[in-house]
């Protein structure tokens, strides 16, 4: 929250630069510093990567007769430094989210991070903190167009300003910064009664506060358990596995190489006894409890089975996957499945609690329709349509979960069976994501009820089922 520092008679605002690793946060702050003829202070870097923050101070402008001291801070991008990122974001008066728009994959990763950012800021409470998306790397030949970016962001884009930059050359960063200051001041104006008077938290105090925070894995709306590195953890496959131990042979090796390039990969035990890794990275790396073999020939047969299963359903699966066989410990071999994270229906529903009733209802109906389509298309496969397993990429329906290790082929369902299963999925949505709004939706349901719309009955069933645990 902005404060008035009476000692220096300035208004202090904090502008926090957020975004995935390598999006250009530090480059942006350094470009700003060059323009201000100042230097950036980055305490305790490791291999050139920010561990706490980049810090730049600039005093200029005027607000209510006082100069504005801007604390320009960028967050660390690594997933395990999430607690620091969160603390910095919660202290912001405005957030500039830097997006690498150089290619579609980078934009896709950013969308998940923007949703996470919005959720962090929502949970922070108080006067809303504005977000500006700085579309960076606009000079790259394959850069996603401005319209493409807006379309990719979809409804997540509401209430967000968009600017463009080539931070390496310093283009667009100053304009974005000035807009950010303006948004920060709007926040102060919006709640001027809460403008605190006192001494501002400077770089040293901020560093001390962040040093006290634990290093953990990513938290937030898509969080899973904190990774535990067990003593008996199997070795992960490395990028040099011999040919014949990876499928598909060529593309699979590229996937493996990229997935293993992240040095922060950890292995953990799940309730099922399976081993997973890749928490906080764009990759899911998984091996079932029973996927370890003491006999190399049996292990190769298991790899072949998994490869066949992937090949059989290839066109239904999200892209960038591979299956690998690697020595997990002396005399034992394990089959691993690696898949790039792709957004599921649940991720696309992350903002439902904030939607107006009418668009919310439309979103629920669209979700039900997508699940129904998945049930139809995936009949005769082991792929189970759920909010977590179904994703959409344009008009393409894709299975975004890992392929079941020993999947059972699903038989065709009658339309009433299918509707019951879709209703069960929506019931969970009402119980979790929409928990606080169930009664509100119920009261308004009468006015939204069409009676003839295809999914009215399913939504009504789900809503009614979800209300069973609400005290009346």
């Amino acid at each position: 929250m902005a404060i008035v520092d009476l000692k220096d008679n300035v208004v202090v605002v904090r502008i926090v630069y957020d975004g995935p690793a390598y999006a250009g946060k530090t480059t942006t702050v350094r470009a700003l510093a060059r323009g201000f003829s100042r230097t950036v202070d980055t305490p305790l870097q490791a291999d050139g990567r920010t561990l706490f923050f980049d810090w730049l101070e600039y005093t200029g402008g005027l607000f209510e007769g006082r100069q504005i001291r801007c604390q320009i801070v960028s967050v660390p991008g690594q997933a395990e430094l999430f607690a620091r990122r969160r603390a910095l974001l919660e202290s912001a008066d405005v957030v500039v989210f830097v997006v690498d728009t150089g290619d579609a994959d980078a934009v896709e990763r950013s969308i998940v991070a923007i949703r996470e950012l919005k959720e962090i800021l929502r949970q922070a409470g108080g006067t809303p903190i504005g977000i500006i998306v700085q579309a960076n790397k606009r000079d790259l030949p394959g850069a996603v167009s401005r319209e493409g970016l807006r379309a990719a962001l979809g409804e997540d884009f509401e209430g967000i300003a968009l600017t463009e930059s080539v931070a390496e050359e310093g283009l667009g960063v100053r304009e974005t910064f000035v807009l950010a200051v303006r948004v920060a001041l709007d926040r102060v104006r919006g709640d001027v009664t809460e403008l605190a008077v006192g001494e501002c938290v400077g770089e040293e105090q901020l560093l001390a506060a962040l040093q006290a925070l634990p290093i953990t894995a990513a938290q937030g709306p898509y969080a899973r358990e904190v990774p535990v590195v067990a003593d008996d953890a199997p070795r992960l496959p490395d990028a040099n596995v011999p040919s014949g131990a990876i499928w598909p042979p060529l593309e699979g090796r590229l996937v493996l190489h990229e997935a293993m390039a992240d040095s922060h990969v950890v292995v953990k035990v799940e309730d099922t006894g399976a081993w997973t890794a890749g928490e906080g990275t764009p990759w899911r790396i998984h091996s079932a409890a029973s996927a370890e073999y003491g006999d190399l020939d049996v292990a190769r047969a298991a790899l072949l089975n998994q490869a066949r299963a992937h090949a059989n359903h290839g066109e239904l699966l999200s892209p960038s996957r591979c299956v690998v066989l690697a020595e997990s410990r002396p005399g034992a071999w394990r089959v691993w499945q690696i898949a790039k994270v792709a957004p599921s229906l649940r991720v696309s529903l992350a903002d439902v609690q904030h939607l107006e009733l009418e668009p919310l209802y439309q979103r629920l109906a669209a979700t039900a329709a997508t699940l129904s389509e998945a049930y139809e298309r995936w009949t005769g496969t082991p792929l189970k349509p759920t909010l977590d397993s179904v994703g959409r990429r344009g008009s393409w329906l894709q299975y975004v979960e890992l392929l079941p290790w020993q999947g059972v082929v699903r038989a065709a369902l009658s339309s009433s069976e299918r509707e019951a299963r879709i209703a069960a999925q929506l019931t969970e949505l009402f119980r979790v994501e929409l928990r606080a709004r169930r009664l509100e939706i119920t009261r308004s349901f009468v006015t939204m009820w069409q009676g003839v719309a295809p999914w009215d009955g399913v939504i009504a069933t789900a809503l009614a089922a979800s209300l069973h645990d609400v005290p009346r």
Partner: protein
Amino acid sequence: MSTAKESLSMLSELEGFLGACIVDSNSGMMLGATGSSGELNLELAAAGNTEVVRAKLKTLKTLNLNDSIEDILITLGRQYHLLRPLSSNRALFIYLALDRKRANLALARHQLTAAENGLQV
């Protein structure tokens, strides 16, 4: 269309040029600047003149004149200061400082108009 840097560089060719910047009148922050800071601290000047522009805009509104500001001229003993809100974005203005002895005011206003017309912000 030209960038802020190109437009400001066009102004720097004026006889008697001291400094120029593009300023956000909401915050007083500069979007870009050119010129020596020897005689003039452009950062401070930008912030201070923001108050001038805001006050004049407020006065026009109060007087209900239904008109807009083309430019504001402040004549000092040794300098001219010209403030020109952008017609394409009223939240921004160009601030131009000139040496009064050497500057041609009419030409400066003409050049300021040209710089504004070519500016893309």
